């Protein structure tokens, strides 16, 4: 019998409204460089009499005034009791029970933003991020899990090893939340509901969810002399998240291995190849990650954010959830693997080659897009099948040689992998782009227009606009087509820049420009140690993959996105077209041209599609261990001083066009509401870390 009890409690406090991403995103516009944050008298600058927009959306005040405090407290207790009964040597029965209690208690405070437009005259921003309110929430989670399984293990005739296991498990999870918001506290310094002074009604919220899983599992292992290995296992799982009749799924797996190097006939080669194993497996996994009871339509109740029928109380309303497929069931992915593991020269050289195919059936996701008149989100359903195929190769070489009478150890290892995913089933016979996928589509495809440089002269631009009807992309094209504008190619030669039928077969003037998923991922580790020094480096990289900068990505587009962006790259102007700089990367400056739907940079095109392939110097560690002879004298076993640097440098074609977006940060962001806007404006930069340290062992 054993028991494992864990308890932890943590507090995390931070400033601001929402998280730090929120602050960076909202500060990314209107905070032009000519604005100081504070007036000479120390008061905050927020608005000015000459500007409609608010400096940095006031985020500097939120952080600067010291009152927008947040505190997250977590308490977690878990206890697992396990009972093992072993009546005979070959058999054991294990039962365990886990109880976990987790509680979040979070407090968020925001206060009015006080600012000054004129000396001695103060104003306050009191809505949105400047609302004076206190939000407190308590979320309690109870989790329990029970497992019972029996194991039987036996070797027959010495060489046949057999092991079988069967059992079942049950888990349940319950969560309850209570939250409250109170308004207009009498002081900014303290945060407690007793300090509310207002007639504005506090807002209360609740919510409970529960789900349970139950299942049977079993496994049989067999090996013959450790040479032939076989494992068969299966799970039969049920979840409360689906409707009765669709709750259970069966997920079998099997694997077989042959340790060729253990064969008697292999002995002669064993000096060179000390380990060789061939293996094959298939395994299936279930995924039930949807909201609880998603198959049901649910009526929920809430207060309006601002509507009343009588002025006495906030109006309340009921709403109904969008219908989802009533036969929602497990998504299953089945993976077929085959591989070879080998070790040569006493494991100095090791390599693994592995190939896999993974079939995902009935992917749980939003169904095929429906016409807007449906009036709700497309039903969640088991809507798509897809197949991912790929490989992975890794090898390492490790050795020690003699260098000047001292041992010089070195190692090199590398791995490379690749995979791609094809949609194998999806209800989109027209293959229209208005739906998310189509059969035969490779995940990550980027379709866009083809361009042919910038117009050299106004005459050239206008002649071209006569020749090809460009009206599809002329939003905000004040003054018409001019020198420095981007020349879009009429790919299908119909005299009109268009989307065709918006289908794969008639895409208009678009084609596949690239893929968002990397063709390759690789990593290289190099290291050596010599005379007390040890050095290791790690490089990591990807093959070609592409990103069309988000329309809100001001770190890339600068004023081509929102012309009032706060931060502009220091060399940005050198890259903007002008009569004197006709070979610039960016076209004729036109505000909002990358930002407004229908404006001409908003449309994906090959000129501004970014290859975000990269090679990153991910880690360098250099250490020196002081000789023991010296340290022993002061009673120390070992002293090692070291330097470690993370993320030291990267190479990427993308760097040429933006130093401010790391290739790994080059993706479209969404905020918690699913909106793509703000969080693409700017975001927390990728960090470089350097560390110096001393390890002392006594």
């Amino acid at each position: 019998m054993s028991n494992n009890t864990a308890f932890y409690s943590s507090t995390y406090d931070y400033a601001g409204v929402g998280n730090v991403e929120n602050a960076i995103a909202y500060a990314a516009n209107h905070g032009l460089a000519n604005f100081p944050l504070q007036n000479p008298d120390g008061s905050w600058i927020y608005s000015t009499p000459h500007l409609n927009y608010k400096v940095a959306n006031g985020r500097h005040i939120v952080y600067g005034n010291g009152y927008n405090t947040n505190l997250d407290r977590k308490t977690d207790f878990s206890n697992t009791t396990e009972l093992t009964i072993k009546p005979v040597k070959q058999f054991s029965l294990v039962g365990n029970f886990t109880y976990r209690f987790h509680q979040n208690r979070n407090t968020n405070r925001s206060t009015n933003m006080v600012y000054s437009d004129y000396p001695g005259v103060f104003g306050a921003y009191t809505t949105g991020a400047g609302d004076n309110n206190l939000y407190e929430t308590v979320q309690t989670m109870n989790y329990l899990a029970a497992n019972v399984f029996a194991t039987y293990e036996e070797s027959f005739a010495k060489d046949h090893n057999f092991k079988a296991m069967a059992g079942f498990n049950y888990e349940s999870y319950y969560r309850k939340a209570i939250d409250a918001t109170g308004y207009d506290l009498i002081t900014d310094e303290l945060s407690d509901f007793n300090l509310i002074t207002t007639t504005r009604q506090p807002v209360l919220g609740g919510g409970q969810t529960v789900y349970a899983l139950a299942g049977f599992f079993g496994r049989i292992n067999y090996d013959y002399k450790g040479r032939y290995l076989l494992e068969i296992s299966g799970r039969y799982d049920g979840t409360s998240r689906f409707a009765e009749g669709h709750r259970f799924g069966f997920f079998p797996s099997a694997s077989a291995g042959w340790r060729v190097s253990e064969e008697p006939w292999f002995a002669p080669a064993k000096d060179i190849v000390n380990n060789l194993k061939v293996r094959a497996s298939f395994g299936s996994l279930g995924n039930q990650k949807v909201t609880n009871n998603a198959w049901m339509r649910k009526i929920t109740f809430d207060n309006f954010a601002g509507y009343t029928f009588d002025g006495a109380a906030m109006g309340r309303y009921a709403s109904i959830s969008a219908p989802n497929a009533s036969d929602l069931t497990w998504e299953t992915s089945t993976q077929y693997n085959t591989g070879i593991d080998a070790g040569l020269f006493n494991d100095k050289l090791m390599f693994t080659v592995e190939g896999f195919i993974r079939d995902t059936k009935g992917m749980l996701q939003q169904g095929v897009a429906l016409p807007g008149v449906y009036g709700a989100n497309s039903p969640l359903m088991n809507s798509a099948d897809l197949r991912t195929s790929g490989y992975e190769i890794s090898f390492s070489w490790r050795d020690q040689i003699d260098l000047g009478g001292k041992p010089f150890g070195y190692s090199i290892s590398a791995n490379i992998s690749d995979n791609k995913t094809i949609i194998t089933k999806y209800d989109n016979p027209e293959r229209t782009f208005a739906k998310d996928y189509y059969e035969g589509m490779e995940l990550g495809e980027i379709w866009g227009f083809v361009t042919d440089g910038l117009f050299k002269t106004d005459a050239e631009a206008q002649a071209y606009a006569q020749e090809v009807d460009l009206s599809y992309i002329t939003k905000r094209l004040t003054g018409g087509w001019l020198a420095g504008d981007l020349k879009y190619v009429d790919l299908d030669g119909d005299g009109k820049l268009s989307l065709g039928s918006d289908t794969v077969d008639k895409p208009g003037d678009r084609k596949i420009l690239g893929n968002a998923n990397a063709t390759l991922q690789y990593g290289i580790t190099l290291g050596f140690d010599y005379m007390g020094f040890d050095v290791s480096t790690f490089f990591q990289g990807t093959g070609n993959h592409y990103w069309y900068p988000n329309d809100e990505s001001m770190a890339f587009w600068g004023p081509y996105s929102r012309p009032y962006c706060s931060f502009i790259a220091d060399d940005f102007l050198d890259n903007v077209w002008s009569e004197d700089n006709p070979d610039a990367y960016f076209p004729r400056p036109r505000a909002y041209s990358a930002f407004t739907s229908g404006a001409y940079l908003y449309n994906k095109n090959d000129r501004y599609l970014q290859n975000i392939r990269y090679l990153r110097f991910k880690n360098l560690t250099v250490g020196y261990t002081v000789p023991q002879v010296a340290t022993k004298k002061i009673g120390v076993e070992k002293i090692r001083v070291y330097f470690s640097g993370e993320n030291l440098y990267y190479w990427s074609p993308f760097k040429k066009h933006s130093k401010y977006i790391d290739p790994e940060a080059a993706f479209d962001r969404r905020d918690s509401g699913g909106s793509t806007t703000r969080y693409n404006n700017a975001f927390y930069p990728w960090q470089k870390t350097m560390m110096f340290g001393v390890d002392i062992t006594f």
Partner: protein
Amino acid sequence: MKKYLIIIAAAALAFVSCDLLDKAPLSEMSPESYFKTEQDLQLFSNTFYNNLLPKSPYGYQSDHYVKQTMSDELHGGTYRIVPNSGSGWSWGDLRKMNTLLAYIDNCNDEDAVKEYTALTKFFRAYFYFEKVKRFGDVPWIDVELGSADEALFNPRDNREVVMQHMLEDINYAIENLPAPTSQFRVNKYTALALKAQFCLFEGTFRKYHAGESTLTTLPADAADYTFYLEQAADAAKQIMDSGKYSLYSTGKPNEDYRDMFVLEDCEGNKEYIFAIKFDYGLAIFHNGTAYGLLPSQGRIGATRKFIDSYLMKDGSRFTAKPGYESMQFAQQVADRDPRLAQSFRTVGYKRIDGADILAADLSSSCTGYQTIKWVMSAKANGGDSDRVDRSTSDLPVYRLGEILLIYAEAKAELGTLNQDDLNNSINLLRKRVGMPSLTMDVDADPYMTNPATGYTNSKLLASPQLALILEIRRERAVEMAQEGNRWYDLVRWREGKCIEQPFQGLYFPGPGEYDINEDGKLDYCLYEGDVKPSSKATSILKIGSEILLSNGNNGYVEPHKGEAARSFNENRDYYYPIPSDERSLNPNLTQNEGWDDGLDF
């Protein structure tokens, strides 16, 4: 060992059989157990109010009200494009209405079923009115659609089909909605008001767009425009004759009109047929006050052509006065229809409950004609309502004033308007503000048919009712200033070209110091050159950069001078485009004329 296996098996069976996996929702209900009581139906339909009703009528731009940054609609031309999605093509509220109607028979309270069926049909007609205004032909859907429903791929129904369904809905609503108990809840008269509104829209649209490409799909047997105008006049008349409503008046012709729109509690105001409640304690705010008051809200201002269209206090025409074009502000606004001074800052303007005389402020109003219509008392909510989103006056959705205008317009367009009708409609509005009556013998105002300042539709100009219609349109624009109707008025009258007329403001004869409201305090100092003069004026503005004038260093304020010319495409801009993704998803949806969505079908 066997013993253990049996225990395991038994326990396992127990787990699965005793429904451990049945976890019903704990804080939500199922539709089958809902829709049982009147309260259930009310809670479910409450969202229709919140989602559909207009909460910022003051915010719309048109040829009468412009902001410093004009809307894409006002710019026209390349500012308007076909979006991929959204842009008014949203159907979630309709679905919710149809859901309610699908489940309403769960309820055993027959009166409640009738009332909430009627209420839902009212809102369905409301919903479709917005759709028809925006897109013209739209699919009519009156069931909760399933994801495999073929009706998802229906083509657009002709506006005539939609209108007839709307009439069925609204007639059912009129029949079955209760008598008024609250101005904030839908009742029989709310439904009549909506009917009057959309029938006037449709009748005038059919009349002025007849034979144009905007109506080419209309079936031959479609109801005549006169049918809709008669329906409009009839619905309006029922409200007028009900005796339940009267114009807001406390006997103060120079204040009543202004005060009504900023009433904190409109319950006593018998003019409001339907209104939205705002409340400080509940933090339910609109932005009306800040909109007219603060420089940060887009600087909306009236255009000079609109200001000039206000009559003189004696009923004569301002634009008949010689030299009216170059009158400076104080002269321009003197002795006008009292609604001018109750809608805009004029000479002697003080805030309600305010002590200081305030001049029209170019920094808050790009033309200098600064609106006060939704500006609350300076002391409202302790002065707090002067801030962004802190206004708490109740906003009207339908008011009797509009109903009277609908009645007069429908009758005039029908050619059946008589002096009694005028006395029962327009002249009541005029009487409230102390204006003389309108009479049948009025002549056509050349200002209102001047292509630079008025209407140009050939059907209108040829109409025997021209003179009366022009006066009724003037009355409508004046009475309903900044209430958000103007854009669709231009649409239904086929007068989109009005947005191409000059958008001008205050007149300044040249550089110099001005006390525009003649209160003894200098308001503006306009200068040329690089040296900023010293002046006691509140604003010192450099001509050509800080203030743009129509004629170099003199003329009218032209806030948009130098911007690309506005253009209204009569073969495109009366309707909004169908989003291109929607046409890809349902190729049976046709695009409105003139819109290029890049699709080849």
